[in-house]
């Protein structure tokens, strides 16, 4: 029973083709870039456009 469960878990894991470090690293990088633009950068154009959203999301705004 236990061995069967293990095999099932393994098959499921292997089926997810993205399960390696590279796409994970890409996702982290992409996520940080998007959040920098939407929540952190203080350039005034970005700040004004994102203003309401930053307040609503509890990002330090100005």
């Amino acid at each position, binding site marked *: 029973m236990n061995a069967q469960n293990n095999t099932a*878990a393994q098959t*499921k*894991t292997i*089926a*997810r*083709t*993205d*399960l*390696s*470090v590279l*796409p*994970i*690293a*890409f*996702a*982290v990088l*992409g*996520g*940080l*870039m*998007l*959040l920098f*633009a*939407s*929540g*952190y950068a*203080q350039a005034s154009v970005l700040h004004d*456009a*994102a203003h*309401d*959203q*930053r*307040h*609503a*999301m*509890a*990002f*330090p*705004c*100005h």
Partner: protein
Amino acid sequence: MTKNLLTSAVFAGVAAGLIAALLQFVFVIPALLEGELFETGARIHFGANGSPESDRGSPGLGTEWARHAMTVGFNVVTYVGFGFLLLAAMAFAELRGLTTITSKQGIIWGLAGFIAIQLAPAIGLPPELPGTPAAEIGPRQMWWLGTLVASALGLWVIAFGRGVIALSGVILLLGPHIIGAPHLDAFWGVAPPELSAEFVTLSLGAAAAGWSTLGFLCAWFWTKEL
């Protein structure tokens, strides 16, 4: 079909961002716009005549469509960003053999994201209603960033650490609050405190809904047999 980490995060982020934006327009933005009335002086709390009373009522969403479109757009950008990080964390946990992700488990991951990224920083730096001044932006951003990183690590250690190591997660969660967030040394907000408190709970509520939706959808898109 290939299950792609990045496209799953984008689908989940766009959907969760739109849902979060909808919740914000119903609950959060009306309070924000009401706060702006006090910020600009259109309404005055504790007015010159010494009255502690001021009118209540949101001006409504108005007709600033470009402004509101930006809010929707940036919600989508933010939630796609959250989605990338959340799904990266899920995939990393699975890669290391720590867990097997299911869509229901995704809700827990989403709530953990809410706690680390929204709730923990908000304990020190509450979401700001317009008309409530706060300390310098630089130190606040530093504390905010440090807090969400420490809280995310803390939750990770509690979830996956063994034995006593798991306890060190508590220190990571508590640390930023013992250090304390930067604050002004005086109160000089012009908006009513009641409205400010409502704004805080409404925005955290919307974020909790957004994050749990995001967690579910990230896991669902990623693990779905298409």
